[in-house]
């Protein structure tokens, strides 16, 4: 009985995060932004590519963070939205010759609609049951992409090769560097949008639902609308990330968007700190670089090493990067007083 109680959906599945604690101070933001702007100028193309992927997965983790950290709903189906975004971009670019920059808002809109619609039935579910429903979506997606009647567009199991765009206006930079700055600009825009969204009326509604659904509805929050809206926004941002991912990797195939991706994104969110938006980028770094480190330690047991590292993090800093950031801030505060 107690085991069931433990996993049964609780009123408050996600720990309440006050909205000020969701962001970082302007000084720190400035330093991070400066680093993101300058580092690529001195890095090899391969590193720039990795940084681009870091931003892209960061966006996808951020989207999940809005959903889970903001409105308190779980999702293991983010890979499905990511796939839809990626395929939308790839199909528009390769079959209809639409400019890559224009495909991204379309990918975002398509995914927003998809997420909003999926949010409708999901309303009836909460906690682990919602996680399961989204899990089903993630497992179904790769097979849907292989369907025969879509093959003319999706390339079936063979996937689609996407052409990487050159820097516009004859700018003297490599394709990788241009794509990085392009991604950085979009990431920044979406980050600022997200921070403002969570500070707005809608954001407060999300958090009220997260903290206590009944109380929120008693206060006049339209619970159904805001829950589906959270799903839509999250899916839309994930779709943009997926589109960017397709351009950066230059390839889409059903095998790229399996449940493993959804779990990685979930992992990134937990490691970065649930509900702490800047943590998204740290979570993204974790899912990109830690498997490489684990592989460096032991090739045969890379999965086990990764598991041990993950376990250590959850055990030592259960609130992820946010906890480290808070401890850091307190230390600096103390030093200043002295």
């Amino acid at each position, binding site marked *: 009985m107690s085991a069931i109680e433990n996993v049964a959906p609780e009123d408050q599945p996600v720990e309440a995060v006050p909205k000020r604690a969701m962001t970082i101070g302007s000084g720190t933001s400035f330093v991070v932004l400066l680093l993101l702007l300058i580092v690529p100028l001195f890095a090899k193309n391969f590193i720039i590519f990795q940084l681009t992927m870091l931003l892209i997965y960061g966006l996808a983790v951020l989207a999940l963070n809005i959903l889970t950290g903001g409105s308190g709903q779980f999702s293991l189906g983010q890979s499905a939205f990511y796939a839809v975004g990626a395929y939308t971009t790839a199909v528009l670019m390769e079959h209809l010759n639409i400019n890559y920059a224009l495909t991204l808002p379309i990918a975002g809109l398509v995914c927003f609609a998809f997420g909003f619609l999926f949010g409708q039935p999901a309303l009836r579910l909460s906690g682990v049951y919602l996680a399961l429903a989204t899990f089903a979506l993630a497992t179904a997606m790769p097979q849907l992409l292989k369907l025969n009647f879509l093959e003319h567009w999706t390339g079936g199991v063979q996937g689609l090769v996407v052409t990487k765009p050159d820097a516009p206006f004859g700018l003297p930079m490599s394709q990788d560097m241009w794509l990085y700055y392009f991604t950085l600009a979009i990431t920044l825009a979406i980050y600022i949008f997200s921070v403002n969204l969570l500070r707005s009326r809608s954001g407060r509604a999300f958090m009220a639902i997260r903290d206590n659904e009944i109380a929120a509805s008693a206060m006049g929050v339209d619970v159904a609308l805001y829950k589906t809206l959270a799903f839509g926004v999250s899916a839309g941002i994930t779709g943009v990330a997926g589109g960017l991912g397709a351009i950066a*990797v230059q390839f889409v195939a059903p095998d790229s968007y399996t449940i493993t991706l959804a779990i990685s994104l979930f992992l990134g969110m937990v490691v970065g700190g649930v509900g702490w938006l800047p943590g998204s980028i740290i979570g993204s770094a974790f899912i990109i670089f830690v498997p490489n480190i684990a592989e460096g330690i032991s090739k045969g047991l890379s999965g086990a090493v990764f598991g041990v590292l993950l376990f250590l993090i959850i055990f030592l800093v259960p609130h992820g990067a946010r906890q480290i950031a808070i401890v850091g801030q307190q230390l600096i505060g103390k030093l200043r007083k002295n």
Partner: protein
Amino acid sequence: MTCVGSRYAAISTALVLLAATGGNALAQKKYDSGASDSEIKIGNIMPYSGPASAYGVIGKTEAAYFRKINAEGGINGRKINFISYDDAYSPPKTVEQARKLVESDEVLVIFNSLGTTPNGAIRKYMNSNKVPQLFVASGASKWNEPKEFPWTMGWQPSYQSEARIYAKFLMQEKPDAKIGVLYQNDDFGRDYLKGLKDGLGAKAAMIVGEESYETSEPAIDGHVVKLKATGANVFISITTPKFAAQAMKKIAEIDWRPLQIVSNVSASVGGVIEPAGFENAQGLLSAAYAKDGADPRWDDDPGMKNFLEFLEKYYPEGNKIDGAVVYGYGAAQTMVKVLQMCGDDLTRENVMRQAANLKAFAPDTLLPGITINTSATDFAPIEQLQMMRFKGRKWELFGNIISGESSE
């Protein structure tokens, strides 16, 4: 003044001499990034983790084989530095690892990376950067497109080659055949079906029934029953192991007695035939290109002796009956052969030129008579197979080595 002049002349002569000899030395030894006087860097990408991790054994076998080559003095005095990364069979990760190998580790070639989709993801990148993507570990026929993708080459017989061999066999031995085909609805199944139809050519009407299944279907009984209803007397099973066993069992159940052919992918005795029942598999046909480590017939074969010796000394944890070990050994041996042929001209261009210039090369683990041949217009190293028939509890090879080369 004359004194200064002559000194000047002497220095310039010396300089010219130096430049000339330097130039000579450069002409003899040519390197691209990844090769030097002491080392050749070879990159590789394998699914050591994830859904296809069983194939990771191939990468481990290759690493062991290169250890053996290094212990024996390397290739023309150069040691092989084999850098193998994990992509967990996820195409975006494959792209990241390929870029890491090419741009950060600066390897000379990427060799035998595994999987149709992962390799499809990096093919364009490899070709636009002119880095050899050699001996791709996948049976898709698309690695043999030297015109469009001059930097990509396969290794094993393609599914199409194998299917063409069955077509040849049927046209010779059973010209009145009515063929029922069951195929998996993905790149593997469709590639195969295309080969079969190409092989039959004008006689493609011999195929009286085609049924496809999805890997997500729990059972394929319905498809088998439908094929029986077409009146087919030959059943070709283009299936992966689980479904191959199911089909074989169902055929026995409904008392249908066609001539059965199963794809090499599902020719495993332990994985397919035993679960389906030995009594249901008598007379079953398939084709092979490599020696079977489980077959005692090869115990005295010199090639297999080399292989077993290698396993004992450099890779004791490798299982000789694991097809992936046999595979990795053969592929690594082909890579070493190409590098030996390159001599001191270790440029990427020359590696591709030599890889496309293999003539009658026979790795230890291929069936006797099967050799590797490539040319500037033929990027399919292994194209021959030998038919085999299941008898008692094991496969028996029969007939000649047949080439599945397309006549185009």
